[in-house]
């Protein structure tokens, strides 16, 4: 049987975790997955909350940022021989019920990577959203449309939600993500382009995403304008890079 891991990157999410964790654990039980949280040196009660739910937690000794946090999870999955990894944010934005949809697509299709898109049609979703859906702040939406356009120009592929952090992939991609090719400062649409350029099969499925109740967390430090500039530069650089060797 395939080993599946759900990783939750966490930084000061004590307010959201009591609501999120039972749902993630329920879903993990349903799909037979293990759950690991990566605590990026939270200063609030996040760690206590995670341990109270019995979730195995990796804790960074100092704050390293979102990219390093998720890559620590990837390295854990690789070291513990997991076949599939699904990533869900700790801020409660992603609907944990969609984990089974991502996993089903990963295991039953030829896709190496399945991206949860907030912009795809939800007509065929097997369940209804819990609350009103989130499509990004105006600046973020401008960024998403810009990245979508750049990706289309550079890879000739239409990716509706290139900034989505709700993503699942197989062990082959896991090997690649643990290498030097992973942009650990702020992984975003550039990762999608890097994966496309390295011939990984990408697929998008509709997922539910909800608005954050508080504007903080791992994305807090990134000023929206700097974020758009940085990712645009990274996209062009990712296009100019050679294909990376993947031994996975």
């Amino acid at each position, binding site marked *: 049987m395939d080993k599946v891991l759900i990783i939750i990157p966490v930084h000061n999410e004590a307010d959201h975790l009591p609501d999120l964790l039972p749902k993630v654990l329920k879903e993990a039980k349903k799909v037979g997955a293990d759950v690991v949280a*990566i605590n990026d040196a939270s200063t609030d009660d996040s760690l206590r909350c995670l341990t109270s739910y019995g979730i*195995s*937690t*990796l*804790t*960074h*000794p*100092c704050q*390293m940022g979102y990219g*390093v946090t998720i*890559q*620590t999870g990837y*390295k*854990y999955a690789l*070291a513990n021989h997991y076949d599939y990894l699904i990533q869900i944010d700790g801020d409660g934005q992603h609907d944990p019920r969609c984990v089974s949809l991502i996993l089903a697509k990963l295991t039953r299709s030829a896709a190496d990577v399945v991206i949860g898109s907030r912009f795809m049609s939800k007509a065929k979703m097997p369940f209804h959203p819990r609350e009103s859906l989130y499509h990004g702040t105006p600046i973020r939406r401008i960024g998403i449309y810009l990245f979508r356009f750049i990706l289309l120009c550079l890879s000739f592929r239409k990716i509706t939600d290139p900034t989505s952090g709700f993503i699942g992939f197989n062990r082959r991609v896991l090997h690649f993500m643990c290498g*030097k090719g992973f942009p*650990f400062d702020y992984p975003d649409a550039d990762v999608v382009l890097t994966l496309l350029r390295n011939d990984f099969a990408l697929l998008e499925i509709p997922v539910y995403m909800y608005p954050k109740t508080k504007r903080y967390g791992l994305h807090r430090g990134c000023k929206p304008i700097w974020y758009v500039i940085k990712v645009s530069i990274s996209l062009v650089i990712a296009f100019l890079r050679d294909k990376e060797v993947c031994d996975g």
Partner: protein
Amino acid sequence: MGNVDMLPDNQKIFIILTGCLLLVVVVELIRRRKMLEQYSAIWLFISLCAVGFIWIYPLLVRLTHLIGAGYTTSTILFCGLFAVILLTLQLSVKISEFAFHIKDMIQELTLLAHKVDQLSQRLESLERRRQSEPLLEPTGQGREEKKANSRKKRA
């Protein structure tokens, strides 16, 4: 080359003295292990250029003529600025390299700490189980002796 001005002697002496001072400071920093040799190369080059200014002066005049600058002082300023840019670039590369190393070390540390936690928890549970289990019955000769003792007591 004729229209390029010549530096007065006191300016040349000042540049050479500054170069000597920089050279001494750089060598002393390396000697005290406050600077690694690999990062001192560009500083040594700058200070040696300043020390050997008398000998490279004709080259400087030719360079001034080549780039179309009006004064040799402008060329010196340009060369200094260029050296600083190179230095900053080298430092940026080094910082990025260190950022990669720090990231890898933090991740390795995090994974190892988690493994240590798991092992110590397992060890604790084994210890607890060992303490809660009843002692094993003695076997062989020991058991026979125990039986004999209990028989004696009853008698």
